[in-house]
């Protein structure tokens, strides 16, 4: 059986379903007998899910305004170039 340390080394590839069948079986056998590693696997999976599930914060309005202004300038410059 894999040791916990060996299991942890593979946890990321395991979650990404990026392990071959033989290794997957070993990893599954390990968690079926090791509650600690089961919890680590489960909470690592949830960690990734939590990050995926949260939208980015709206940007501060002054940052947004400066960005829009910079883009408007650029667009105006491009229109001028293409007009001339």
């Amino acid at each position, binding site marked *: 059986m894999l040791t916990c340390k060996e299991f942890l080394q593979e946890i990321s590839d395991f979650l990404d379903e990026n392990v071959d069948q033989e290794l997957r079986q070993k990893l599954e056998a390990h968690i079926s007998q090791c509650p600690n590693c089961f*919890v680590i696997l*489960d909470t690592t999976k*949830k*960690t990734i899910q939590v*990050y995926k599930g949260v939208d980015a914060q709206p940007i501060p309005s002054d940052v947004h305004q400066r*960005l829009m202004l910079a883009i408007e300038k650029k667009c105006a410059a491009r229109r001028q170039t293409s007009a001339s």
Partner: protein
Amino acid sequence: MTTTETGTFDEAELVRRAKSGDTSAYSELVTKYEGKVFRLAKNITQNDEDAEDVLQDAFLKAYEHLDNFQEQSKFYTWLVRIAVNEALMRLRKRKTDRTVPLDEPVDTGEETVAREIAVWEDDPEQRYEKTELRRILDESVQSLKPAFRTVFQLRDIEELSTEETAELLGLSIPAVKSRLLRARLQLREKLTRLFKRKGEDVFAYL
């Protein structure tokens, strides 16, 4: 305003209009993605000023090169590549500080230990207000070493592939994988301290 909630069709349409010089279409794309680009820039540069510069430069550069954008790929993925390059360039410019170059080998060989082992609450994120949860998640990512933080950002937040991440950061695939492993485990530890079920530990399972 065109609905851009989802729908690749709408986005493709916006990109086409922007390409033909429709400024309002490009503004819609900017409004849709500015939050994500700003978060990405902030997580890489760890500095508000630099992040704002990266934000502006990325959207301006994307506008300039819009004609080169191949419409079969996703606009956001294309934009992320531009933003990451801008952010990395800015990091390199900051010679005075102690920033370690991201492509420098980091010691990922030390043991991957898990100290905090505890079951989480069901849907722990429901216990926090959205703003508070974002703050917790951002701060946790920002407390990682730059080498881990950037890989996590690209792989698990921007959802780039291992290969794309390796190429953008100038790293080997095994280096991306080992950094991602460390980043995920470290974040798991940090979040476990906040999200663990009270009054219960793993031994309840034994």
